């Protein structure tokens, strides 16, 4: 059963309340400092959102064995990670924010969304309600995120195939209605597709950054990702289509 797509058109950016003392402020301050990036470095913020229990944290935190995370994950947890990836011959620093623990739609502060160049929206393929929640998450994205932010829809828990309730086609269909949104399924448990998710997103972001890099540099370098199928041309340009 598909959720309804009664999503208002993307509103103008902004409209966020103050959140100066919440943790995203750290990232916000880093952004504000505007230190010129070192050669061949980009800094991109990526946030992971989705309903409770869909596996957002395990997309970011790879291991669950006897580590620091077991000792203190429930009490402290990871706020964000800096990860360096190489793509198109460039070094890119990703700042990846996990919003777990703030899943109520309105509790994730706008600060998370505002600076994000990439947004990973996660649902659980074994839980209908996490899929039904997607339009509500899209509302938040519309309200707070930059219009340029790249979106990736992830159907997580592919390792639980026997309990699957949301078909791959349902996920694809949801993503296809939102202009520029990519879709994939993943299993954070066995790390299937997880690295690819971030690389794919980064590649999309980079391809949209012609102003900061001379175009020829980007187009001349070899792409280390498999090209994604193009969005069918008949799809309308606006990200959200109202039915």
């Amino acid at each position, binding site marked *: 059963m598909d959720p309804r797509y009664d999503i208002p058109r993307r509103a103008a950016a902004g409209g966020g309340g103050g959140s100066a003392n919440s*943790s995203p402020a750290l990232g916000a301050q880093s952004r504000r400092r505007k230190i010129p990036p070192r050669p061949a470095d980009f800094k991109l913020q990526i946030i992971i959102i989705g309903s409770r229990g869909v596996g957002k944290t395990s997309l970011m935190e*790879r291991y669950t064995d*006897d580590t620091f*995370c077991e000792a203190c994950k429930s009490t402290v947890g*990871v*706020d964000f*990670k*800096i990860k360096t990836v190489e793509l198109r011959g460039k070094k890119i620093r990703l700042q990846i924010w996990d919003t777990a623990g703030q899943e109520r739609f309105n509790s994730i502060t706008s600060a998370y969304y505002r600076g994000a160049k990439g947004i990973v929206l996660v649902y659980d393929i074994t839980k209908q309600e996490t899929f039904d929640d997607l339009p509500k998450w899209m509302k938040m994205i519309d309200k707070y995120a930059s219009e340029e932010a790249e979106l990736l829809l992830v159907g997580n828990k592919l390792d639980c195939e026997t309990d699957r309730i949301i078909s791959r086609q349902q996920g694809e269909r949801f993503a296809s209605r939102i202009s520029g949104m990519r879709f994939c399924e993943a299993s954070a448990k066995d790390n299937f597709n997880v690295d690819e998710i971030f690389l794919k997103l980064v590649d999309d972001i980079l391809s949209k950054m012609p102003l900061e890099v001379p175009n020829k540099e980007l187009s001349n370098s070899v792409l280390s990702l498999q090209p994604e199928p193009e969005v069918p041309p008949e799809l309308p340009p606006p990200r959200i289509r109202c039915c």
Partner: protein
Amino acid sequence: LNQNKPAFKCLTDRSDLVDVDGKNSKFVLCQRCDAKVLRPGIAVFTEKELFLPSMKKKSSLNTSEGSLDGDTLMTHWLVTDIFDFENVGITKDVGRIKYLICADCEIGPIGWHCLDDNTKFYVALERVNHA
């Protein structure tokens, strides 16, 4: 509070690790998974007395009885911009403190950051490898 662990590394170790500018001459790596934390020449050798909770799994960061298993460490790599790290994880706030962990295997804490100064991230020499 009695710390029973010797906090200082011997000086001979250090000249290996610190270049003429006082920066790290080697890669800073995770002790468990070898993930790159810092590239050479990024961080400044610094002495500062910092308490880091134990890296052993059963230690907990929420002080239940004020007795927290850990080490007081004196030697650190000081990083002034979070984006200077190659890979690092930052915990949520513990009071005014955020701990640094390995971004890949999440072992830690390997370092310390206080919310009062957004330009100081410390990575404890004793909690990382150098190569």
